């Protein structure tokens, strides 16, 4: 963490997709600072560039130009493997469609990032069951994702996101595939995490959800059009 407490610092971030024939400028100069302990909702219509922004924030992709610092480290000129390591240690992902591996148990799903992080098996197992316990699935460690409801799957995903104790939790439409009850449960879980001091970035077009954040950033056509406290 650098001195002003920024977890994410983006300056003049541009992303151009070169499809060969045409160049598509998805992000046209984004400046964004997210501090530790914030819960930021990024909203915008589809095609606004918020997915691209999420990929960059999550180090799934690198910007065409601009400066990006994640937890004080510049993300630039790194190899794919180094990016993988940054994702592993610094970012916890929560996806709209959960993206759990279907053939392994909830426990093994939560263990997976720790496997990549080089944590020894016993510690993995202990921490994974602790986390699942914390999201209310202590009874279902050995269930496969297919044996769980949508809300439960998203809880497993959140436990997995927490596994490596990352600097930020990055959630992409986390309630998009859930009914309103489970959706609001998940939001409460996020709020709880925020209250425990975690930094969360939630991408959504659900305004009800966005309102529960501490700050709302609106993206339009590759630019930040509004940035306000909720």
């Amino acid at each position, binding site marked *: 963490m650098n001195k002003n407490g920024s977890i994410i610092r983006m300056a003049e971030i541009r992303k151009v997709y070169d499809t060969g024939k045409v160049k598509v400028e998805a992000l046209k100069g984004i400046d964004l600072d997210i501090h530790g302990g914030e819960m930021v909702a990024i909203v915008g219509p589809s095609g606004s560039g918020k997915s691209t922004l999420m990929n960059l924030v999550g180090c799934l992709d690198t910007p065409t130009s601009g400066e990006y610092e994640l937890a004080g480290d510049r993300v630039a000129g790194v190899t794919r493997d180094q990016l993988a390591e940054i994702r592993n240690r610094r970012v916890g992902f929560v996806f709209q469609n959960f993206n759990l591996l279907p*053939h392994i148990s909830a426990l093994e799903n939560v263990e997976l990032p720790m496997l990549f992080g080089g944590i020894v098996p016993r510690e993995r197992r202990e921490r994974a069951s602790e986390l699942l316990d914390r999201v209310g699935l202590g009874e279902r460690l050995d269930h496969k994702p297919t044996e769980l409801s949508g809300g439960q799957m998203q809880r497993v995903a959140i436990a997995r996101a927490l596994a490596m104790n990352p600097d930020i939790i990055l959630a992409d439409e986390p309630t998009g595939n859930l009914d309103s009850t489970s959706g609001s449960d998940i939001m409460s879980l996020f709020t709880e995490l925020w209250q425990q001091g975690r930094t969360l970035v939630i991408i959504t077009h659900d305004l009800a959800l966005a309102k529960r954040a501490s700050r709302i950033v609106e993206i339009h056509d590759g630019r930040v059009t509004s940035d306000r406290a909720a």
Partner: protein
Amino acid sequence: MRTDLHIIFSLFATSSRLQKKRAYLTIAAIAWGTVAILLLLAFGEGLKRQLDRNRRSTGENLAVMWPGETAKAYKGMPPGRSIRPRIEDVDIIRARMPELKAVVGELVSWRTAITYGRKTVNGRVIGVNWEYGEARKHFPQAGGRFLSPEDQEQRRRVIFLGDEMAKNIFGGANGVGKTILVNNAPYLVIGVMQHKTQMGMYGGPDANHATIPITTFRAQFGRERINNLVIETNNPDEMKPELKKLNEIMGAKFRYDPTDARALGTWDMVKSAKQTSNILIGIQLFLGIVGALTLLIGGVGVANIMYAVVKERTREIGVKMALGAKRRWIIVPFVLEGVVYTLIGGALGIIIATLLVALTSFIPIEHNKVMSFLGRPTLSPQIGVITSLILGMIGLLAGYFPARRAASVDPAATLRYE
């Protein structure tokens, strides 16, 4: 490194198993290919060993020479002179070239009447030195013997029969100890040759001729000039220089250019054995390539199935990458999977091929004309090593290319949508 291995094996163990039926089919394809390559190579090896054995049944490290005509002018004499060595030349060569294992002269009488009781057959009778038996592998059946130095010295009327000829004369009965007439002169049968499958021959198969001491032959047929001169060296490398030396000695005596290859006709069996073995290497190579290609098709099957698996698991791969999996942690389990299928198939194929080869040993070979030339399929350690290497390579390649595709998955693109 150890963490790497741990991660890779954990991932390999937990990655979703591909559909069973597809795995079985792939393994079967590899097994089939392995059986094909093993059987082809085993067949080649059997053929090689059999041909080798058959070739050696004429004799080893031999050269045969026969009378010829000079092709080069020499010391004022024109080409076209006949060179016909005589019986005493055998002794000259033996005296001047003591390093030779054997020197034998052959005098041949074609279509000679051989009579036993009321039965007469026409056959070849050859007068030879006693060393002929060892050099030309005329081994006696039980109860008999080949010509001895004493037979030759005392000009005995004894005869050693080829097994086919003995069968023609005596039917199934044992001929040893019987007296037969050769051009009306009585001879005592002292031995009958053991059966052999003969590859190299001149004049005809050994089984169809009879041999008598060279001295006896000379006395009965009154001939001095030898039809064939056979020399045997102690090892194959000596043959070329020994032939050169022999031509120098004979060239000096008969006054011909020692480099004149036509003065004495020569069949260098060492040289032809080398050619035969080159051809055999060619045949084995060909069989091996055919087998390898068959196996390769199995490998393509594995690669194909692995590509399908990569496609099926694209999202799974994307998820793992998002969670921090490095490229090699994605690639190696895939390669491993390809290798495992290949090795299971290969092991199955090796078992099946070994059983099949073992079964062929029940086919009788000794009195089967085809089998006595083709030999029996044989698996050798080299074949095992070659096949394993090919299998391993195919497994690696079949896993590697799909795995590379897997590692090129863009997690950002795969994660967001179903």
